[in-house]
């Protein structure tokens, strides 16, 4: 994988003072070089990098690269990333499982359902169900 555009210096700075996985996620998620990493690599390439890189003897730099790739995956579509990541054991990676759970919780749905209905149906009640982690809303329509 090509990391030449990754802002490694900034990512290391963040890693060195991170006390929690949430801190690392917040700062890496908004990093433009991680967004570029996501744009220039497909989901398979990114997830394969993680699965081949996890081992107990990885250095601090290796850890920064893995975290960058893991959070780059959060910029990819959930329907691609979730099946790919289910095959990877993150238990041996410090903050691996925690970061992945934060990524999953922050995926937004790309699902659009179109239903043909008469133009004037009536009043739409407040949402019956709404998930914080997606933009899916279930509503009841009173005719």
């Amino acid at each position, binding site marked *: 994988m090509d990391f030449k555009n990754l802002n490694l*210096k900034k990512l*290391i*700075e*963040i*890693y*060195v*003072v*991170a*006390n*929690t*996985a*949430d*801190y690392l996620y*917040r700062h890496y998620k908004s990093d433009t070089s991680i967004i570029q990493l996501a744009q220039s690599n497909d989901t398979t390439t990114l997830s394969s990098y993680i699965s081949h890189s996890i081992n*107990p003897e990885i*250095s*601090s*730099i290796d850890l920064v690269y893995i975290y960058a790739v893991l959070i780059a995956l959060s910029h990819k579509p959930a329907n691609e990333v979730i099946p790919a990541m289910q095959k990877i054991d993150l*238990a*041996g990676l*410090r*903050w691996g499982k*925690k970061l992945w759970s934060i990524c999953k919780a922050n995926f937004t749905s790309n699902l659009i359902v179109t239903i043909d209905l008469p133009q004037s149906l009536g009043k739409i009640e407040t949402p019956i169900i709404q998930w914080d982690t997606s933009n899916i809303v279930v509503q009841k329509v009173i005719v």
Partner: protein
Amino acid sequence: MRKSIVNPHWSHLDLETTKGNQISNYQDSQVIDKNIENGCRDIYKNRYPAMVERTTSPTSIYNCHGMVFGSRRTQIDESTSVRKILEDDGYKKVSPENVMAGDVIIYIVNGDIEHSGIVVHPPIPENFNQAIIISKWGPFTEVLHPVHQSPYDSTTIEYYRIDK
């Protein structure tokens, strides 16, 4: 101490609150690379000129929450664990004007307690009304710093004191 079965560099302590609730924690025996340590030291000293390193060698054995709540023996990295300790151990919130040396400070962002430390000097005019904190910065070193001069978001801070 229990050795981790997934990574030989990790181990866990049996850590409980005073009410007997388990606190998840781990020690990591790996340290950050020397070139990273030196590079980051230069960057942060340049960015926060008032910072003073209290310890000279980085360690991943403990982090900020482990320094404040785990006697520098382990890392505590879940906000829920920190909240459980504050509750179970009888910490009471202290208003900024009543802060004293020895009080605990926590930095909160969207519910995540991203940092904690111990007050060394309360916020007095001589310190430009900024408390001086000692805290551990991730796997880096322990640092003395003014409350608003660190890599952590100090927009929402809270002070606590054990008062039983």
